[in-house]
């Protein structure tokens, strides 16, 4: 059974139709690449799945049940976590503070609730170890490399029991070595049985980690193929429009 299904999803912004009748599904533990040129509708699609936008028309099913994702909080409640393109990190806080931002661990003294610094740090250290990332829980994000920031953003999604992680251009702004690190992280998520939708411009990344690739062009889905059945050349042709569908 599919984990997340989109059926005929359409999104209009005034006179602009950003998405028209997009349907696809993602299975449990599946890593799906979502590709397309600028303005193809990838980000709109991600924002619909993460609860920032509401579709103009169409339905979403999560775990087989029809659902509406009203807000980022309700997406998170369902088990959908998002790693945003700009990573959504506060530079002036530590890695562990960022991971727990909005869901801090607390203890009570009378009516007052205080932060459990040590417990949060310990959990953050565990998460980085799980992701095999060289990131210190108590370092400030300001001092971190692109790869480490990515690790913080990904570690945040591991805090709850996420079933699906949406990653928006996780390898766009980082060095070659760090790209390898991030792709490794994605493999670890798959090992843990988590589905990933990887939005990317970078063909090699998609072909390295994904099992399936969905190609968008001008708000429409033009292809949905297993990686084994396609080639970078074909996907490039689909993205640019040299090939209409496949």
């Amino acid at each position, binding site marked *: 059974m599919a984990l997340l299904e989109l059926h005929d999803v359409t999104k209009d912004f005034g006179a602009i139709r950003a998405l028209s009748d997009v349907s696809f599904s993602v299975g449990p533990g599946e890593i799906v690449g979502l590709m397309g040129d600028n303005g193809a509708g990838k980000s709109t699609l991600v924002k619909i799945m993460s609860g920032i936008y509401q579709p103009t028309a169409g339905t979403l099913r999560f775990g087989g049940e029809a659902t509406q994702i009203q807000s*980022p909080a309700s997406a998170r409640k369902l088990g959908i976590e998002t790693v*945003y393109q700009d990573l959504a990190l*506060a530079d002036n806080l530590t890695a562990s*503070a960022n991971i727990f931002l*909005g869901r801090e661990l607390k203890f009570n003294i009378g009516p007052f*609730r205080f932060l459990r610094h040590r417990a949060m740090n310990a959990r953050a250290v565990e998460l*980085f170890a799980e992701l095999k990332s060289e990131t210190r829980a108590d370092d400030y994000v300001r001092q971190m490399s692109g790869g480490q920031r990515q690790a913080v953003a990904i570690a945040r999604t591991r805090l709850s029991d996420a079933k699906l992680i949406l990653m928006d251009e996780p390898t766009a702004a980082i060095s070659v070595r760090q790209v390898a690190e991030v792709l490794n992280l994605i493999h670890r998520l798959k090992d843990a049985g988590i589905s990933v939708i990887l939005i990317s411009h970078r063909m090699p990344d998609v072909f390295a980690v994904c099992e399936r690739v969905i190609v968008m062009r001008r708000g429409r889905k033009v292809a949905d193929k297993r990686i084994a059945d396609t080639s970078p050349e074909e996907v490039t042709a689909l993205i640019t429009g040299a090939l209409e569908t496949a």
Partner: protein
Amino acid sequence: MMTDTTQASPPQGFSNVRRTRFWQRGFLASQSAYVLAALIVLIVFMSFASPNFLTAGNVGNIVRNFSFIAIATLGITLVIITGGIDLSVGSTIALTATVTSLTMAGLSQAAFHPFPGFALIVSIAAGLAVAALIGFGNGVAIAKLKLSPFVTTLGTLSIVRGLTYVATYGRGTSPTGPDKDLFLAITSGHVAGIPIGFIYLILIAVIMWIVLNHTAWGRHVYAIGGNEAAGRLTGVPVDRVKIQVYVLCALGAGINGIIISGWLGSAPANLATGYELTIIAAAVIGGANLAGGIGGAAGAIIGCVLIEVIRNGLVLARVDPYWQQTLVGCIIVAAVLVDRFRSLRNG
């Protein structure tokens, strides 16, 4: 998965990232620490330069004087940490003082005095309620209507000052009535020789330090200043926290207003005109970053003390008092310059 961990996967090694040293992180690495060092040097210098500087009377003066703006500085530091600004604190000081003394005078005129302290409690509550309302207005306009903090509070500055003049016809008011002595005792009295305003300040600062460093709310204040969009996406109640911060800032100003009016024994309508600039200067000298995300309770107090010590020192040194402002301005620039050089060096 389990076997994976037993294999010789490289242990958590930080091959090329050196741990930052203790003096490069935390309080010691903050602008507040540099300014504190400068303050200590200045105090030592002044104590040699002027035999009157460290006398009990003069220290008492300094403590009382910086307490007058320090609670408002704590409040505005919260606002600045979120990346906002509040220009209306000076006016809020005046209106709170005015409302408090008007209420006291009104109750005494009406001869409504069921028990001792009643007029005091009601009038202080009325003053602080007005302050909270001003802060709430600022907060809603900034958080919900997305107006710029600078313009919004510039408007509030004028509105609130105008209301103060309207309420008093431009004349001063003064706290009167049966609770007057009590009012003076709790605003300008001394406890064990310590000015009571200073005791309030320390209490509030300690609470603020705990809240900023050890509660989720405090962390959200910093997160909003660091990256507001990130806060929203991760479920921080950004709007609510912002409104609360402006309310607290106005309350801080209000408390200072009541304390000042107690010490003066009256609430002139032009009370605290221009104080907002001194208060913002104190916060910024103490390390609050106007870009948001950085600041704290200790820094706010350090900034206030530094400004007051300089003012006091110039008077003792018989320097033309008109130099004061110039010097405070230089210190603002020097403080942020030092911080700039430090962050250039440490990345």
